[in-house]
């Protein structure tokens, strides 16, 4: 068991109207998201992680470890946690960890942080992603960016990390061929795998906690696509439980930051005594995390950040063109 001591979230202020983007690329149909949260030309995973971590660490004790979760360039081959630790001015003995491989990795980071946060110093966990899809593919994959950070301590927080349960299957919902500039996504495989992983993880968590999904005040889930959230309804998750934490239809897919930002929104609205279910999904694996709120959280107003300022299509094009091919 470990506690959440503080948290932070960052969403870039710019919003690309997806409907206009679809028209530009000649893609018919209703946009699956109203806008995309689009990082500026001078933003990336590191700068967004810095913003979220700065908010989470304000007034906190110096962490003993910093765990960063990301799948985006420019830190595919290099340690983001080390650079982030230096940017935050953390002590030289702060141990930097990096997790990648799937966008549900924040749940893995919670488990690692709970194991590491045994002494006086807490552990900082940061999930940050800046997804940039190749030209018209962005209309399907809703690629956007954001970051969320949590400070995990052994005790003394406002919420306790409860049991965690997971279900895994090997699927190919994302892969890369040869020298293609961007990975391919197969959405129908994603929808099926998300539903199967959610069912397995929710069932396992219910066994561990003896609580069905319906008792949670809210469900904060990874949301790569609006259709995945609809699949949670079959598991007993109500629209009310998802109402506050669903944003993929507004600002797109935040990748690894998705479940973190949703959890921040859920904590903002939570009251002492309530339970929150966080669900991270990626690459066929679903991880369900029970969170028990023990005191009023220090609300950060994360939900208010979903609204942003619209940018012109030309600006989006200028900021993102070639970005997916940046070196890692």
């Amino acid at each position, binding site marked *: 068991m470990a506690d959440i001591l503080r948290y*932070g979230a*960052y969403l870039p*202020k710019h919003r690309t109207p997806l409907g206009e983007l679809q028209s530009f690329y000649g893609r018919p149909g209703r946009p699956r998201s109203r806008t995309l949260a689009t990082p*500026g*030309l*001078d*933003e*990336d995973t*590191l*700068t967004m992680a*810095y*913003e979220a971590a*700065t*908010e989470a660490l304000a007034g906190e004790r110096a962490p003993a470890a910093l765990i960063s979760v990301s799948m985006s360039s*420019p830190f595919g081959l290099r340690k983001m946690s080390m*650079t982030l630790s*230096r*940017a935050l*001015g953390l002590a030289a003995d702060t141990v930097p960890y990096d997790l990648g491989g799937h966008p549900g990795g924040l749940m893995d980071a919670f488990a690692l942080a709970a194991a590491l946060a045994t002494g006086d110093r807490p552990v900082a966990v940061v999930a940050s992603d800046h997804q940039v899809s190749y030209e018209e593919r962005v209309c399907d994959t809703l690629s956007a960016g954001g970051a969320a950070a949590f400070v995990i301590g052994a005790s003394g927080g406002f919420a306790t990390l409860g049991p965690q349960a997971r279900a895994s299957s090997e699927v190919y919902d994302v892969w890369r061929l040869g020298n293609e500039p961007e990975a391919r996504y197969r959405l129908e495989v994603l929808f099926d795998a998300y539903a199967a992983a959610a069912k397995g993880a929710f069932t396992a968590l219910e066994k561990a906690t003896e609580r069905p999904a319906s008792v949670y005040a809210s469900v904060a889930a990874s949301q790569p696509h609006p259709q995945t959230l609809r699949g949670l309804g079959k598991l007993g998750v109500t629209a009310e439980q998802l109402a506050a934490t669903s944003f993929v239809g507004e600002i797109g897919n935040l990748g690894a930051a998705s479940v973190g930002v949703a959890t921040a929104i859920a904590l903002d609205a939570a009251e002492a005594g309530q339970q929150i279910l966080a669900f991270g999904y990626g690459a066929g694996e679903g991880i369900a995390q029970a969170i028990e709120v023990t005191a009023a959280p220090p609300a950060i107003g994360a939900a208010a*950040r979903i609204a942003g300022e619209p940018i012109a299509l030309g600006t989006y094009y*200028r*900021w993102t063109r070639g970005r997916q091919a*940046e*070196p890692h």
Partner: protein
Amino acid sequence: MTVSAIEFSRLGPPKLRLYAMRCGSCNTLQPWWEKFHCYACGAERLTEEELAGTGELTNYTVVYYPPRDFLGQEPYVVGHITMDEGVVLPAPVVDTALEDVQLGTRVKATLRRMKLGHEGDVYYSQKFVLDTPGAEA
């Protein structure tokens, strides 16, 4: 200035933190690039000192036709920031509409990309955002 990756490594660490140089003789705070010479007293013993990151915009201009390395970011604001510690630093002010920028505006430092080097190396540095009540971190 564009440099190769090897040259970049020789230039020292990227500016991940905001700092200035304190003169060990007259105690004056100098901008970060004055590493060897105090312009107040001429002393040559200066040490790095981290800044709190907040200050006031005391002068600015809007760049509409940027140098090659900053293409795509225009129009952007570059200002003189008088830090709360007293030293004046030049830096971009971002995430704000041009009409919202005024002399005397409170600003705070944040980490942003400065430019992308021609060998793919990312240059990070300190930029400033408005530090107004209700503004996002």
